[in-house]
C-alpha cells in the first residue's frame, strides 16, 4: 500500500485513512479552541488547522473551520517551502508568519507550520492559524493607511528550531503587543496542537505501514477533483457577470465579477473592481481566493470535506493593485468589509445558471462596534461587540434572520457585554420589515439600542456596511433593509470615531437579506405567518398596555 498508482487504493482504505486524518486535525483544533485566550478562537472558531502532504497540498482541514481559511494554510506551507527551503527544515522546527499576503490576509492571524519527518524524511506539514488577542498597532478599525500602522509584522521565519523557541523574536513580539502573555500564550497553544498532530500522524503511518502520504493524497485529490469537475460540467457553458456597488469610503466601491464555465473548469475574474485604498479595507488575494472558493463550494459540492483536489478546476484572477488584490504595503485589517461581499456577487452572477441554488444578498459583512475608555476604577479598557444581519432568501426558502454569513461570528450575550463595559442595552430586537420582499423573503436584521453609563467619555468606532447600498434581491425579489447607525437619534458618519458622554445613546440597525422571486407570488400561508408574528411592518404585534 505504500506505493502504487492512485487508482490501486481501494475505497475502504481511503475512507479509513481520510477519516483518521480528519480526526487528527479535529483533535488538534480542540487543543487550540480550549487553550486559546482569544474569544475569537474559542467561541468564534476564528482559527484553523490543516495537514498537508510534503508538497503542501491539503489533505484535511478541521471541521468548522471558517471559510476565510479555505486554501490559505496550504498556500502558507508552500510559501515556506519556497521562501525558507525544505533543506533548512529540521525535526522539531516550527515556522511562523503573519504576513497578510503569505498568511490569511491580516496581521492578527499568526500562522504556524511544522515540517513532519519520519525516519529522516519529510512526509507532511502540519499548519495552523489563530486570531491572536492583540498584535499591536491601531485598535481594530479601518483607519490605518499602510500595513505598518496595523501592528507587529512577522516575515517567514523560524519560531522553534528543534523545539527551541527563538527568544529574540518572542522578546520583540512581547514588546510590541498590548497583551504579551495572551498573544504569546495563543501562539504556544498552536504549537501544542501541532505537536499532537505530528504524534497522531506518526501513529497512523505506523498502523498502516505507510512510508509516505503521496499515494493516498493523490488518490483522494483525484477523486475530489473528479467530483468537482463533474458538478461543473453539469452547468451550462458561458460567462455570467455581475456588478455590485458597496458603501465604500468617500465614494462607493465597485465589485465586478465575471464567472466563466467552460467544460469542467470554472474561472472567476474581478477585473473592473475598484482600486486598492489607503484604508484597511483591502482584501489580499489569499482572502479573495478563499471567499471565491467558498461560494463555488456552497453552490456545487457543499457536503464534501475540503482537500487540495477540490479546487483544481477553479481559477481566480484579480487585477493587481485592486481592492481584491492589493500590493504591499496596503493596510488590510478590515478585509472582511470588502471580502464578505464577494460570494454575494458570485451568487448574483450565477443566478441564471443555477437559479435553484443561489442565495440573494445577505445583510453582511459582519458589523463591529469597538469601544475604548476608562473604567470608573481608573483602568483603561477596550471592548469589541459583533452583530449580524439577515441571510438572503433562496428560491424555495426564506432567509434566516440575524445569522453570521459568510463568516461565523457569534454576538456577545447582552449580559456579558454589560458586565464588561459601560454600555447598557435598551433593546436588541428583530427589525420587522427589514427582510427583502419576495416569493421568499430575506432574513431580518436586528436593532440594538445602547446607552453609555460611563462617568468619563468613551470612544466608539464602527465597521458597518450596507448603510448606503442594500443587499440585493434576486429574480425579482426586493432588496433587504439598509443598515443604520445613529447617535442620540441622529445618523452619523459611521467611518469616523465618535466620543460618547454619559447618557448618550447608540443605535445600530443591521441590514436585512434580499428577497427571491416576485413578492406577489408569496404563498399565502407565509404571508399570514409574517403578519401574525410581526416579521413585516404592516401589522406589528402590540404588547398589551
Amino acid at each position, binding site marked *: 500500500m505504500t506505493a502504487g498508482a492512485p487508482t490501486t487504493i*481501494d*475505497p*475502504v482504505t*481511503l*475512507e*479509513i485513512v481520510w*477519516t483518521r486524518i480528519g*480526526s487528527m486535525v*479535529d*483533535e488538534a483544533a480542540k*487543543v487550540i479552541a*480550549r*487553550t486559546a*485566550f482569544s*474569544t475569537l478562537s*474559542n*467561541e468564534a472558531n476564528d482559527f484553523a488547522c490543516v495537514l498537508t502532504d510534503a508538497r503542501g497540498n491539503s489533505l484535511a482541514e478541521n471541521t468548522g473551520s*471558517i*471559510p476565510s481559511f479555505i486554501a490559505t494554510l496550504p498556500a502558507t506551507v508552500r510559501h515556506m517551502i519556497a521562501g525558507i527551503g525544505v533543506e533548512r527544515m529540521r525535526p522539531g522546527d516550527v515556522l511562523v508568519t503573519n504576513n497578510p499576503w503569505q498568511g490569511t490576509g491580516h496581521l492578527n492571524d499568526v500562522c504556524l507550520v511544522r515540517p513532519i519527518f519520519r525516519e529522516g524524511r519529510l512526509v507532511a506539514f502540519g499548519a495552523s492559524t489563530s486570531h491572536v*488577542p492583540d498584535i499591536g498597532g491601531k485598535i481594530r478599525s479601518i483607519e490605518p493607511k499602510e500595513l505598518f500602522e496595523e501592528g507587529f509584522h512577522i516575515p517567514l521565519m523560524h519560531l522553534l528550531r528543534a523545539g527551541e523557541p527563538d527568544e529574540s523574536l518572542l522578546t520583540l513580539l512581547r514588546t510590541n503587543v498590548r497583551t504579551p*502573555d*495572551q498573544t504569546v*500564550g495563543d501562539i504556544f497553544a498552536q504549537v*501544542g496542537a501541532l505537536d*499532537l498532530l505530528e504524534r497522531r500522524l506518526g501513529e497512523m503511518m505506523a498502523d498502516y505501514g505507510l512510508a509516505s502520504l503521496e499515494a493516498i493524497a493523490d488518490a483522494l485529490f483525484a*477523486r475530489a477533483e*473528479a467530483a468537482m469537475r463533474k458538478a461543473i460540467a453539469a452547468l451550462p457553458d458561458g460567462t455570467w457577470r455581475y456588478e455590485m456597488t458597496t458603501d465604500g469610503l468617500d465614494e462607493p466601491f465597485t465589485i465586478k465579477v465575471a464567472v466563466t464555465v467552460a467544460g469542467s473548469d470554472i474561472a472567476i475574474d474581478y477585473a473592473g473592481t475598484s482600486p486598492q485604498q489607503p484604508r484597511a479595507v483591502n482584501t489580499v488575494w489569499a482572502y479573495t481566493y478563499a471567499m471565491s472558493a*467558498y461560494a463555488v463550494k*456552497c453552490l456545487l459540492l*457543499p*457536503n*464534501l470535506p475540503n482537500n487540495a483536489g477540490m479546487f483544481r478546476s477553479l481559477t481566480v484572477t484579480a487585477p493587481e493593485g485592486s481592492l481584491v488584490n492589493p500590493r504591499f504595503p496596503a493596510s488590510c485589517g478590515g478585509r472582511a468589509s470588502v471580502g464578505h461581499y464577494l460570494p454575494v456577487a458570485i451568487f448574483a452572477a450565477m443566478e441564471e445558471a443555477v437559479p435553484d441554488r443561489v*442565495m440573494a444578498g445577505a445583510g453582511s459583512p459582519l458589523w463591529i462596534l469597538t469601544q475604548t475608555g476608562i473604567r470608573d476604577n481608573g483602568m483603561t479598557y477596550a471592548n469589541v461587540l459583533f452583530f449580524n444581519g439577515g*441571510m438572503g432568501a*433562496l428560491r424555495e426558502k426564506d432567509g*434566516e*434572520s*440575524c*445569522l*453570521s454569513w459568510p463568516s*461565523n*461570528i*457569534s*454576538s456577545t*450575550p*447582552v*449580559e*456579558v457585554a*454589560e*458586565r464588561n463595559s459601560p454600555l*447598557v442595552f435598551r*433593546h*436588541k*430586537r*428583530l427589525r420587522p420589515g427589514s427582510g427583502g420582499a419576495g416569493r421568499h423573503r430575506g432574513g431580518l436584521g*436586528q436593532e440594538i439600542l445602547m446607552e453609555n453609563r460611563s462617568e468619563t467619555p468613551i470612544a466608539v468606532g464602527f465597521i458597518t456596511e450596507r448603510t448606503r447600498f442594500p443587499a440585493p434581491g434576486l429574480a425579482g425579489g426586493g432588496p433587504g433593509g439598509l443598515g443604520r447607525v445613529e447617535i442620540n437619534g441622529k445618523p452619523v458618519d459611521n467611518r469616523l470615531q465618535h466620543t460618547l458622554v454619559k447618557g448618550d445613546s447608540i443605535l445600530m440597525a443591521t441590514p436585512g437579506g434580499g428577497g427571491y422571486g416576485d413578492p406577489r407570488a408569496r404563498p399565502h400561508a407565509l404571508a399570514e405567518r409574517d403578519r401574525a*408574528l*410581526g416579521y413585516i411592518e404592516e401589522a406589528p404585534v402590540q*404588547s*398589551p398596555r
Partner: protein
Amino acid sequence: MPDYSLGIDIGGTFTDIVVYDHGSGRQWSRKVLTTHGDPALGVIDGIAAILAAERLDAAGFRRVVHATTLFTNALIERKGAVTGLLTTKGFRDTLEIGRERKYELYDLAIANPPPLVPRDLRFEVAERIMADGAVEEALDEEGVLAAAAALAGRGVQALAILFLHSYRNPAHEEAARTLIARGFPDLFVTISSEVVREIREYERATTTVANAYVMPLATRYLERMAAEIAGLGLEAPLWLMLSNGGLTHVAEAQRRPVQMLESGPAAGALAAAFFGAADSGGDVLAFDMGGTTAKLSLIDKGEPLVAYGFEAARQKRFVEGSGLPIRISALDLIEIGAGGGSIARRDEIGLLKVGPESAGSEPGPAAYGRGGTAPTVTDANFLLGYLNPDFFAGGTMAIDLAAARDAIEGLARRLDLSPMATAWGIYDIVNENMVRAARVHVAERGRDPRHYQLVPTGGGGPVHGYYVAKKLGLTRLIVPPAAGVASAFGLLVAPIRVDRVATIGFRLDRHAPAALEAHFRALEEDARRTIADSGLVLDHIAVDRLVDGRYVGQGFELTVALPAGPYDRAPEDETRQRLAAAFEAGYRGKFARTPGRVPIEFTNIRTTLRAKVPGSARLGGAARHARGEALKGRRSAYFPELRRFVETPVYDRARLAPGEEYGGPALVEEDGSTLVLGPAGRLRVAASGNIIVEVE
C-alpha cells in the same frame, strides 16, 4: 422480609424493567414495548407481570427508580404545552435571535430550530436590573398581570419568565411569579433564576422555556406514575433519574423537569461505571451501541464526568450547534450516528460511507426481512459471521440472510469490491467513525484514551468493542453480563443528588475569600432544602464545591473542583493560594500549561450534594451460570489479522464459569448480544460475572 429494588427505563422503542433482590443477589428483567399513548400502561403491565411470574411480594420493594425519554421526545416532536414567554422590555426576541452562529458553513438552506415560543406569545414588561444586581427600574406589576391575561387568553398553559441579570438578582422574577400565581393559578410558571442561575441570557432562555414547555406534561405524568405504582401495592418512594446521574423526588422533578431530559443515557453511563469498577481502578470508557446511535462517556475513578450543558432536540441530528442549549448539569456523553441500523453507501467521490442515516427498527436492516433493502452494519455483521442468524435476540427473531447478502452485494458492485471486502469495510468504517468521535471527545477533556478500559454495552457494544478498543489503543475490555439491559441497572446504583449553580464574578486577586465562603454556604443551604423535601433521613451527605473559572480575558470557563471549605478561617493570602493552586492544577490537567501572571476569576460557583440511598451499595457480585458445556459449536467468521474466514468457537455466556479462560478468535453469545474476540485477544470470566478481554 424481602428487600427488592425496581428500575424502570422508558425508551423510544422499549421499556426496560429490572428487579434486584438485595438478599439473594438475584435479578429479573423484562423488555416490553413502550406504550406511547400512555407510557404508564406498559410499565404497570410489565411490573405486574414480573411480580406474578416471579411471585414477588409488592411490600418487599424498598425503592423504585425511574428514567424516561418522554420529555426529550416532547421537545423533539414539539408536543409540549402551549408556552408563553415574559421578558424584560426590549428583549422578547432574545429567544429567536440566539447566538447568531451557523451550525453548518456550506449549507445555504440552513434552518435554525424554530423557538419553542413563537413571537406572538412572547411579551415584554418594564423592569430593569443591572449587571451588578441593582434595580434601575422597578417591576411594572400591572404590566405583568396584563401580559399574563393576554397570554392566558391566547391559550397559553405554561409561562417562562426571563429578566436580564436575574442570575444576580432574582427579585423581579420572583415577584412576577407570585403575582401570576395569585391571578392565574392554573398557569405553570418557570422563572429562569430557579432553573439556571447563570449569566448568558439566550442559554438561560432556552433552558427556562424548555422547562416550562414540558412542565404540564411532567406534572401530570409523574403524579399518575406515582399513583399507579402505589396502586400495585408498592409502598416504596418513587425516585427519578436526572441527567447528571443523580436521583431526585417527584416534587423536584415536577418543578424542574428539564433536569430529566437525559435520564436514560445517564443510567447507561452509571451502569458502565458500576460494572467497570468491579474489575478495574474505575477509569473506564463507557461504550453503548444500539440500533441507531452509539454513546460514549468517560468515567474517572468510578465517577462519570459531568458537563454543565448539552443540546436537546437537534435540528440536524448529530450536528453540534443545531439544537436547543440546555444549561443544566448532565453526564458528559457524546452521541454518534453509528448503530446496527446505520446504512452504508457509496458517496459522491466513490468512497464507502456508513451512517449517520439509519434504517431504524422499521424497516430495519435487510436481514430483518421487513422490507429493508439498504445494506446496514447489522447485515455486514451477519455476513462476517459475528452474529448468529439462528440465535438473534436469543432466537426470538427470524433472520433473512439472503436479503442481507443481496444488500451488501449490490453495494459491493457499486464500489467494485468483493462482498466480503465490503462487509469488512462497513464494519471497519463504522468503528473508525466512533473512534474519531471518541478521540476528539477525549482530547477536548485533556485525557489520554490509552489510560482507559472499555465497557461495551447495548446490543452492538460487545460486537464492535474489541476492534474499537484496538483502534483507540486500549488494551482491556470489561464486558458486563446482560449487555442489552445493563443500562437499566444503572438506575439502582445512583445516589440522590442536587446540583446548584450561581454566577458571582469573583476575582481571586481582589475579593475576600470570606465572600466566596458565604456564596457557597447560601448555595449549599438551598440544595439541602431540596434534599430535606424528600422526607428521607440521610446520615451522610457529601458536598463538593466547584467553580467555573478563567484567566481574565479568556472567553470560556473551565470547571474545576475546589478544596473543601471553609474559606474564612485561615489567613486570606493562604486561602487565596490554596484556591489558586486548585484552579491551576485543574487547568494544567486539561491544558498542560498555565498562562502565568494573569489573574483568575471565578465566574460561576457550583455545588453538588450527594447522598447514598439505603440499600444501593450491595448490587452486583454473584455471577450466575447455567450448567453444561460452554462451547455451543463453531461458525465461520472473518478476522482481518488472518485475512480469511476461520472456524471460530462459539461459547454460551450463561454457561461460562468464573475463572474460565479462552484465546481468540472466539464468539460469546448471550440473549441480547454477541462478544467478538479477535485472534490476538484473550478472555477470562471474572468472579464479578464480567468477562475481561485482553487485547493482544
